[in-house]
């Protein structure tokens, strides 16, 4: 794979403090590469050295094989897309004028290729008729940043730099824009250098993650590699224990469905089918009036003997299904749930009452939970 951007022993000093230390970094072409790390780790400085918004103190930076010290900074920047956290749309210009800015900078003329503008508006999911002639103040933050992305794509640059572009947006909009960025780049294959301090964002959108700490690259790799083999304690801590082993500390009680669908043993088969249809389940737990567990039953048990109208649930229930005790660590029961014939395992209290139900779906849920919680907070 070709490298779009290469850092060779690049350092950056401010006075006596070394911000970036002899950094070697290769950024492959056509991928989303996320620079991630705590604030002050040098990730933004690294990104801004690529378009010479910040000049390196020593070392070489190659963009498409060319040393950027030999390129006029203004020309270099016009050839690289740039998106920032504050969005930075010009409030006195229409959306179309904002998008068409780089060609205007190049030609010095105001005349616009409206077709091109419309094409970009469609690409970022905004209706050209509706938005072309509006002003930034009329748009929501999410819409504004879509324009920010469209503006960066205008001159069809092979490389786009994005400095925490979604950090200031609300969580739902952020998720949407992340999804669209992934979709967009499957289509466009730009080399995107994306800076964030948010590990979730990095894991979600990155083809490659570069973890940085105190001006150095600590680890570079695919998200999966980083998750499976964190290079050191710093990376492990930055990922957070919960992402590495989210399920270790859970008990079955944390995960089970608290109110499973139950049926009394005295019910007829047709009644049981009605319950299953209504609740959209394929199995029922059989309990008596006091909640004492008696067995389970499923559609196949019932349909098998449905024609016999004299039967009730007590006659078709399975009594020797696998059950687990309340309070059992989740790790012990994961294989049971995966192998259970109907895909679920009842959880019983010590005196044999039904406490809840473990399903395969609830396991998926718990593995995803740390992420969901963070989105909500």
């Amino acid at each position, binding site marked *: 794979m070709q490298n779009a951007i290469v850092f060779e022993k690049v350092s950056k000093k401010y006075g006596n403090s070394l911000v970036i230390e002899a950094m070697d970094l290769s950024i492959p072409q056509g991928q989303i590469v996320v620079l991630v790390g705590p604030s002050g780790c040098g990730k933004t400085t690294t990104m801004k050295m690529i*378009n010479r*918004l910040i000049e390196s103190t020593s070392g070489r930076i190659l963009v498409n094989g060319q040393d950027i010290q030999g390129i006029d900074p*203004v*020309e*270099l*920047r*016009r*050839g690289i897309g*740039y998106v*920032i956290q*504050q*969005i*930075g*749309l*010009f*409030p*006195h*210009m*229409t959306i179309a004028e904002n998008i068409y*800015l*780089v060609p*205007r*900078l190049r030609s010095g003329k105001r005349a616009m290729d409206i077709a091109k503008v419309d094409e970009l508006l469609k690409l970022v999911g905004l209706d050209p008729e509706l938005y072309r002639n509006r*002003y*930034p*103040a*009329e748009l929501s933050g999410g819409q504004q940043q879509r324009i920010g992305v469209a*503006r960066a794509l205008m001159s069809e640059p092979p490389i786009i*730099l994005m400095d925490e572009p979604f950090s200031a947006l609300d969580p739902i909009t952020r998720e949407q824009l992340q999804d669209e960025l992934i979709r967009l780049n499957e289509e466009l294959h730009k080399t995107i250098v994306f800076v964030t301090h948010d590990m979730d964002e990095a894991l979600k959108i990155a083809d490659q993650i570069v973890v940085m700490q105190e001006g150095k690259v600590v680890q570079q790799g695919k998200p999966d590699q980083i998750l499976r083999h964190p290079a050191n304690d710093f990376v492990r801590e930055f990922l957070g224990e919960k992402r590495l082993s989210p399920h270790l500390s859970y008990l079955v009680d944390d995960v089970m469905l608290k109110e499973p669908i139950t049926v009394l043993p005295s019910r007829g088969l047709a009644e049981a089918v009605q319950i299953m249809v209504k609740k959209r389940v394929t199995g029922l737990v059989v309990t008596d009036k006091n909640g004492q567990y008696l067995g389970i039953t499923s559609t196949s048990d019932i349909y098998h003997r449905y024609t016999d109208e004299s039967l009730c649930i007590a006659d078709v229930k399975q009594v020797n299904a696998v059950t687990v005790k309340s309070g059992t660590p989740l790790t012990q029961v994961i294989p049971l749930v995966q192998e259970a014939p109907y895909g679920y395992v009842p959880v019983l209290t010590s005196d044999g009452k039904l406490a809840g139900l473990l399903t395969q779906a609830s396991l998926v849920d718990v593995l995803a939970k740390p992420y969901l919680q963070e989105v909500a907070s």
Partner: protein
Amino acid sequence: MNELLLVLVDRWPDILRASGQHILLSVVALFWAIILAVPLGIFLTRQRKLAGLVLGVVSVIQTIPSLALLGFMIPVFGIGSLPAIIAMALYGLLPILRNTYTGILDVDKSLLEAGRGMGMTNAQRLVIVELPLARSVIFAGIRTATVMIIGVATLAAFIGAGGLGDLILRGIAMVDTGVILAGAIPAAVLAVLFDLLLAWVDWYITPQGLRLKKQQAA
């Protein structure tokens, strides 16, 4: 009151001529004040170490009583409209200079960052971003300067530059209230009219996108 009306009608050609002079003096002085102060203000945003010194000197000019400033002109430039215009222009410098300087410095830094990152040259940054966004602040400075200059123009008669001050001085010499007012009322009206005119121009040339932004903020 009737007496005043009679004087106004009687002196109408005088009033018109004096008003014409008054406006001409003011507009020429304002023109030079803008021509000097706006580029100097822009320059200071690029050389901010000089800003304190230059703004300080211009503030000192401003604190000189206007009549005294006109007096200082006489030994150097003699009497007539030239020294009056120079004094008036100097007087109008400060508000325009200060507003140009702060207006440009107050432009949202993230916009400059975006502009630089997209490859704007320094000149493009000034013309495309800074001046349009600082324009209303600069314009406010010009309005202040205009009202001040029209006021000072009334004193220009003291050094023989003419204008509505002429009528006022003559009225004082003749102890004739009617004549005094024939100069004073148009001078006051002119100041108010110009201020309103500039307010309208300011609104008219504000880009729609910025008007929207202001509405939202309000």
